[in-house]
């Protein structure tokens, strides 16, 4: 398959798992030979397609995900990649149920012909897909273990550099916490990073400061809730960070469970933005502006107080 003259075209939804694993699946598949076709960035049309198909009470990101698969189904891709995330290597934390059932949901909704779906079961660990996970993906594409071995990604250390860069930034710094597919998808988060930039703020995410996908030691059951919690605690403890925005998807059980805990324990100003299909850009902007105003005033009064003392 890998050496075929016309490589097959593999569609990968630019949603949930794509962001969660930092695009690792797409790069890996490309290195194996097939042509990767990513669905377009999330937009109104994609979301509307998903929303029409998915039951109301499933969380906001699942609706977007199904929309991405529907968009790919209309293209000429040969196969559409919907991996089944099964379990964490440690056996102590778990992915949430809807994320483990993406393939079943897509298949049951008949978003596309079941024969076009590629649904290998993959395991993950703190850093993303495990070697076994990549093996499973590669084998689903018909690659040999040797080809898979050559295509495996190298570990990266980019996270710490970003943290170091932001520490020297004079602008107010806003920490952003939440599941990676909310933090990294501008449509889902209402272009939060750009809006903060426009308001003169820098931003820093859990991934930027090297928080693993599934940190250990929180006692939490769901791995991305643990990621949110640990990122929140770390950003709260960083002097350079002035405030934290918590992105919470509508009806997300795991992060809903810790929302109250975060509100009680985070000492810095915290803004919880619930993201749902009814969000209006104007309302979102107003809340972000109000939060940045609050941060500015808090910083100004702190400077004034410190100046008074010295």
């Amino acid at each position: 398959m890998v050496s075929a003259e016309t490589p097959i075209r593999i569609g990968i939804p630019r949603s949930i798992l794509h962001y969660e694993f930092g695009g690792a699946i797409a790069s890996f598949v490309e290195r194996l030979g097939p042509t990767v076709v990513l669905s377009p960035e999330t937009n109104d049309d994609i979301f509307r397609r998903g929303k029409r198909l998915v039951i109301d009470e499933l969380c906001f990101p699942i609706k977007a995900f199904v929309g991405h698969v529907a968009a790919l189904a209309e293209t000429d891709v040969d196969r559409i990649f919907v991996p089944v995330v099964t379990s964490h290597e440690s056996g102590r934390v778990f992915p949430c149920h809807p994320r483990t059932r993406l393939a079943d949901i897509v298949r049951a909704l008949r978003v596309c012909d079941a024969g076009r779906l590629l649904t290998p079961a993959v395991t993950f660990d703190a850093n993303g897909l495990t070697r076994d996970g990549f093996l499973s993906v590669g084998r689903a594409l018909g690659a040999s273990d040797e080809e898979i071995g050559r295509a495996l990604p190298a570990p990266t250390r980019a996270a710490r550099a970003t943290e170091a860069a932001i520490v020297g930034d004079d602008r107010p710094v806003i920490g952003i916490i939440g599941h990676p597919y909310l933090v990294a998808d501008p449509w889902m988060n209402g272009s939060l990073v750009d809006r903060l930039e426009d308001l003169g703020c820098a931003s820093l995410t859990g991934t930027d400061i090297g928080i693993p996908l599934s940190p250990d030691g929180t006692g939490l059951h769901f791995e991305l809730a643990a990621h949110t919690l640990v990122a929140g605690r770390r950003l709260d403890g960083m002097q350079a960070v002035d405030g934290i925005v918590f992105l919470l998807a509508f009806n997300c059980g795991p992060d809903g469970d810790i929302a109250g805990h975060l509100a009680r324990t985070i000492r810095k100003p915290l803004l919880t933005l619930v993201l749902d299909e009814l969000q209006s850009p104007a309302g979102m902007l107003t809340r972000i502006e109000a939060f940045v105003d609050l941060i500015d005033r808090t910083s100004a009064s702190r400077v004034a107080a410190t100046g008074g003392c010295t």
Partner: protein
Amino acid sequence: MNHFTFSWGKNYIAVRGLLRVLGQDLVAPPAINTAMATKGIETAHPFLCFSGKLVLGQLRAQLEQGNRSMVFMSSLGPEACRCADTSEYLEGAFGEDFDGFSAHRIGGGSFGGALANLRSNFGPRIRKHDCFRAYAMFCGKVDLLFKIEKQCTALRCLSSEPQAVQALEEVALERVDRTNTMVGLWRVSRWFDRAAERLPRRSAPPSLRIGIVGGEHILSELDSVMARIKRLAEKGIYIDWRSGFRLLARSTPERLAPLKERCRDYLHDEPSTSEIFSCAHALEFAEEGYDGVLHVYAFGCMPQSALKPVLQRVAQDAGIPLLSLSIGDRFAEEGLENRLEAFVDLLTEKRASKRRIHTVHTAKGAA
């Protein structure tokens, strides 16, 4: 010492049995009512499942009565959902309002884990033997409670004296609660079988047969939601469900394998036990000629919400009517009654039209 817990239907009786083996005791949880549900909704984050909100409301009501030491039965692992290791977060939710509140998890993914939990809660003197006896009592009582509930629901449809069935159920539950030996449980079980057999039967067969699948937490909520659903039995409708905490607790990969195989066309690798049960049992009900399937789950229940499209597909493929009842914050008894009535009407009409078609075919054949 008297502890408290949430009810899980009548399963608190089994938790109490476990504690009594260890020299502890448990107060009976109050029946869940609207005020309690409201307390839970106010306490919980909006995205917590409705079952979780009912649990929090029931816990808060007991805290207001002065109880402080809570125990909760939970395993760890993929089956555990959100109740796993939540002590710290429960203490966060209630600790500020109720001085001295503590939450202790009993149960564990393995015998070693369960023993460690019992020792950390009740002292290092708990021996392996005590742990074994306590869990044997828990499992024995959970089994018997499941049997009593299931048979009594069936008898409400099959017997001509539903009030006698209710009386039998009450006495049986009391006996299970009082019994503290395995032999005693066996005797209660035998007594119950004989008493159930003596109840007079209706002459007419059930008018309809409805299978229930769904989230084990909401299926075990017997005070309001399931009480109304099971009342269908008194109208001569045979109600069956094949899931529950008993089966969740007893599931092993070997036992689940045939059910998982049955769901192969609908569920991919590694589904949770609750998902396997719901999908496999819906398929069983369809194959066994049941008239309809009720899918009951709490709004916000992640496994069951993710499963809903799958069950809709199962029902379409099998040609069996499916009613999904999502029970949430805005649950109203009248709304539930209306939907159930409409579903029963639809099933009755479907059965009648099938009979009419059969009669016409038979008549044509005879001609």
